[in-house]
């Protein structure tokens, strides 16, 4: 059978790191996948070397709009590692609150998009409507919807006002029933089970081989979470569970993320009620020569920053490793052997914020057939309809 090449990308509007997939298909089955990354390069690491330590916090915030807390968090930890200082307890709690709020909105965003790819636009609308509530909470806490600008070396920039806490707690409580409803809608639907169970399986061994991180690894049975393994912020002071599942398919990745949202709510509530008093930052004078690392658990996995200082007021080297960089190669394991209608959800399952509707095209080598990204999503949605019809729903 003739092989067909499907280029996907390179410019995906919601991608954390823009990338270009080349799917080779035989009929309906994907036989090979290749990938190019490095598009959308903005030279952030080089840019950071020209900025002062305080300015870099704001530059790294713009690495990714969805992880706009994870990168400054890891960066400030790296600089604090050079200085051998720790932020005061109140600052640690505030950082944890902001990071968990980000995890909540990021997972909801992903859930909505996954629902859209599977042909459930209701889930998309529900999840994004719910996400607005969390953005409201973040706006109350930080004054911003997306780029919170809360971080600085040695602490945080803004305090959380005491009078805001009751209204925030009330708002978080109001999210829970809708989230429960969303969970049962996803968990109890036999069509969704048929579409996601056994699809895009990443075995435990493969996850270790490919160094998968975050929910992608935890769905494959690897109990690894920076928040538990090397606690930072206030994660060791509140009670929460690491969610680990065994199968590694798309369903488990959905399950891990939905369960993590409930854990995030638990952490958020515990931190807000037990917020200690005291200073929110400490005095930072000169940054001595040396090197430091900071790693934190971003919504998509471990985010790692390395900073080397030569004693001036600007970093001599700044290295960033985002979680999707580690998760992308797992596509070789999950996508190959699958069907084209499943490719959209399998590629989306690691949460690269795969929303490349308008920049995806399927091209036959002989130039006869042309599918757009919309067609791929349509194929995926048609498969859901077909299963629905077979199940008589």
């Amino acid at each position, binding site marked *: 059978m003739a092989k067909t090449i499907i280029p996907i990308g390179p410019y995906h*509007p919601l991608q954390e790191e823009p990338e270009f997939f080349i799917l080779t298909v035989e009929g309906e089955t994907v036989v090979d996948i290749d990938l190019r990354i490095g598009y959308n390069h*903005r030279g952030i690491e*080089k*840019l950071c070397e020209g900025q002062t330590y305080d300015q870099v916090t*704001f530059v790294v915030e*713009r690495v*990714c709009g969805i992880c706009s807390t994870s990168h400054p968090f890891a960066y400030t930890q790296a600089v604090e590692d050079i200085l051998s200082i720790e932020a005061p307890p109140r600052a640690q709690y505030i950082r944890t609150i902001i990071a968990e709020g980000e995890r909540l909105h990021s997972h909801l*965003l992903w859930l909505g998009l996954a629902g859209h790819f599977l042909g459930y636009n209701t889930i998309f*609308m529900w999840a994004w409507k719910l996400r607005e509530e969390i953005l409201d909470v973040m706006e109350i806490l930080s004054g911003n919807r*997306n780029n919170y600008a809360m971080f600085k070396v040695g602490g945080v920039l803004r305090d959380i006002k005491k009078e805001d806490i009751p209204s925030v707690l009330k708002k978080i409580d109001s999210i829970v029933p809708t989230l429960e409803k969303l969970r049962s809608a996803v968990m109890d639907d036999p069509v969704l089970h048929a579409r996601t169970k056994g699809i895009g399986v990443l075995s435990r061994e493969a996850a270790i081989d490919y160094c998968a991180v975050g929910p992608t690894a935890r769905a494959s049975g690897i109990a690894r979470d920076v928040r538990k393994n090397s606690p930072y912020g206030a994660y060791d002071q509140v009670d929460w569970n690491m969610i680990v599942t065994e199968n590694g398919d798309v369903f488990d990745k959905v399950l891990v993320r939905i369960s993590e949202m409930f854990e995030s709510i638990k952490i958020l509530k515990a931190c807000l009620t037990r917020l200690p008093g005291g200073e929110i930052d400490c005095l930072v004078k000169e940054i001595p020569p040396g090197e430091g690392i900071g790693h934190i658990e971003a919504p998509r996995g471990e985010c790692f920053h390395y900073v080397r200082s030569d004693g001036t007021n600007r970093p001599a080297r700044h290295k960033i490793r985002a979680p999707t960089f580690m998760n992308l190669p797992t596509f070789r394991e999950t996508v190959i052997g699958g069907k084209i209608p499943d490719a959209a959800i399998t590629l989306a399952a690691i949460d690269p914020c795969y929303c490349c509707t308008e920049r995806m095209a399927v091209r036959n080598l002989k130039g006869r057939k042309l599918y757009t990204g919309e067609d791929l999503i349509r194929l995926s949605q048609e498969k859901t309809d077909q299963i629905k019809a077979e199940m008589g729903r």
Partner: protein
Amino acid sequence: MGIFEKAFLKSLWVFHLATGSCNNCDIEILDCLTPRHDIERFGMLLTGSIKHADVLMVTGAVNRQCIPRIKRVYEQMPKPRLVVAIGECALSRGVFMQSYNCPMPLDHVIPVDVYIPGCPPRPEAIMAGLLKLIERRKTNHARDGRDA
């Protein structure tokens, strides 16, 4: 205002092009579609193909790889074509101004009709910008989009 113009302004179809953005503006554009903001009540629809689009929404600090692609997309757009620059990066490159990979702002590449500042602009700001575009066309203050 002729019948074409009347119909045109009631059903602007929008194409979204990310040119090296950090996702924030892109998410806020998607947010406009969701229940709280619901931009579809103004007849606007996010379309998957540039050939169906009336408005090109560009986000991100235009980087070297994107410049020829932006021009190509703009050339494929049917006339009249309107361009909206969203976010600080598309306006002036924002924090990426000194980056070696972001040589020029968007309006040096293609003509821009509306600039929506913010990092990222709120969904309300994006809607206000688009409505301003409609308003300006109604009062004949806008570029007619048939040039270039």
